[in-house]
């Protein structure tokens, strides 16, 4: 499978910048997202993984433990666990303990419904576990329109429980939309109130996100507002390198500013399929399955797709742009799911280079675990156009790059 035929096989450079090294891939991922289940008690409009119903073929407890053993052998020091809503798996807490006992730290994303006082206390007492609460509006009105009725209150309750338990620096994870970008200061205030860290990530047209992309993705002037806000708030706000397409405005945002898909990042889905990144759950980006003969390691090191992604992009329209070194052409998944060529500009290219491009047909999802019946707390969109509402959700927005900001600690040593 060839994604960008213009990529010749190149040789890894000796020394030089880390970003150039990362383009050629690592021996194991440093940002691995593991979605434990497609089951979810919510039906968020923008769910990246079209979650809702459990898949009968999801990895068993024993298979999950074997995968954790493999992560330990590969020295994958931490994983980002999501879903679906991971806490609905009956063995979730068992797997969490197993991972931590095997030197695989965990950050998990949750909608907070199940983070009661008792759970919060246990989490606060466990090393190597970090929690990320999804919140897509600083007010119930904005949040619940995307995530469903009662979800704002549930997130606030979870945060209050964690604060009371003494859990420090948990994350509040916000997917930026045109309705919540005017609330950035309010999000920061909420994070400060709860002793949490604010994390902003980019809306992607992946999964059910494709259905609401046109209505929710930030307007061009809001992209600038977001960029200025991120520059002003610097290291106080995490982004997981989510907005590297905005670096084309000028000063680079903190982070690597590189698409890490298949190079330093990947996703393992609930049935063990391995995809290039959390935003690319589609057959086109499927590298293999952990149940295969070579296990996860075999997929990571030998899949044709990943080896292809580890060749730097050398062709395409973007390489002729003055901003290419800053934004590197943007997000592969955002292009793919909006029907744009992969070696051309990002649909939200700040230079406006995607505006007049002819788009192919959007490829849609190659899997859909959305709820099929009525969902009790289904979101009611804010003055949106027709959207599919009988949908499940997930706390699944995961960054294309690493938890926290390891890049900051990049030591330019010999």
């Amino acid at each position, binding site marked *: 499978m060839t994604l960008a035929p213009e990529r010749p096989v190149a040789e890894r450079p000796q020394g030089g910048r880390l970003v150039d090294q990362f383009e050629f891939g690592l*021996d194991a991922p440093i940002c691995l997202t593991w979605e434990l289940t497609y089951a979810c008690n919510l039906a968020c409009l923008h769910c990246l993984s079209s979650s809702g119903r459990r898949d009968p073929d999801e990895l068993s407890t024993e298979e999950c433990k074997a995968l954790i053993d493999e992560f330990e052998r590969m*020295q994958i020091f931490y994983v980002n666990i999501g879903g679906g809503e991971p806490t609905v798996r009956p063995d979730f807490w068992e797997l969490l303990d197993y991972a931590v006992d095997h030197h695989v*730290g965990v950050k998990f994303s949750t909608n907070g419904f199940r983070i009661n006082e008792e759970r919060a206390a246990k989490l606060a007492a466990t090393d190597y576990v970090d929690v990320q609460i999804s919140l897509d509006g600083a007010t119930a009105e904005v949040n619940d329109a995307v995530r469903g009725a009662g979800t704002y209150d549930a997130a606030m309750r979870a945060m209050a429980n964690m604060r009371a338990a003494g859990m420090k620096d948990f994350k509040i994870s916000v997917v930026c939309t045109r309705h919540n970008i005017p609330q950035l200061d309010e999000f920061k205030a909420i994070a400060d109130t709860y002793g949490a860290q604010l994390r902003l990530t980019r809306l992607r047209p992946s999964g059910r996100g494709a259905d609401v992309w046109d209505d929710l993705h930030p307007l061009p002037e809001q992209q600038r507002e977001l960029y200025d806000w991120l520059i002003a708030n610097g290291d106080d706000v995490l982004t997981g390198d989510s907005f590297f397409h905005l670096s084309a405005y000028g000063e680079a945002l903190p982070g690597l500013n590189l698409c890490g898909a298949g190079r330093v990042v990947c996703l393992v889905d609930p049935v063990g399929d391995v995809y290039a990144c959390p935003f690319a759950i589609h057959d086109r980006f499927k590298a293999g399955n952990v149940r295969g003969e070579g296990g996860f390691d075999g997929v990571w090191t030998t899949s044709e797709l990943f080896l292809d992604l580890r060749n730097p992009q050398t062709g395409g329209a973007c390489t002729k742009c003055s901003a290419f070194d800053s934004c590197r052409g943007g997000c592969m998944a955002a292009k793919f799911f909006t029907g744009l060529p992969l070696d051309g500009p990002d649909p939200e290219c700040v230079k406006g280079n995607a505006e007049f491009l002819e788009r192919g047909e959007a490829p849609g999802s190659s899997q859909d675990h959305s709820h099929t019946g009525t969902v009790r707390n289904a979101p009611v969109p804010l003055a949106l156009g027709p959207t599919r509402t009988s949908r499940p959700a997930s706390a699944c927005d995961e960054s294309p790059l690493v938890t926290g900001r390891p890049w900051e*600690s990049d030591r330019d*040593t*010999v």
Partner: protein
Amino acid sequence: MPAPTTRPSTRATTPLAVREQSAWQLSGSVELRPEPFGALAYDFDTRRLSFLKSPALVAVVRALSGCSSVAEALDSTEVPDAQRPAYLAALHDLATGGLIKERAS
């Protein structure tokens, strides 16, 4: 004269110089993972990931615990004299970040 600053420097917690005659080792909470460009260093306590950008530096860091001094580690990994100052500076950075710590020789 500039006004004294009241904000402590975030890097000033370990102002120790890494001297050639002192003995060091990888911190107990840190693991190294080999990579084509060198290694990742992960600190399980601070959850920070760092990058060692040369295989030769990785060799020096790995040699520290089995050597009675930094000088011995540099000798055993055949670091040329001309490059020693650069390696000492790199080790100093690692010490400042808490990735290596001094021990009794």
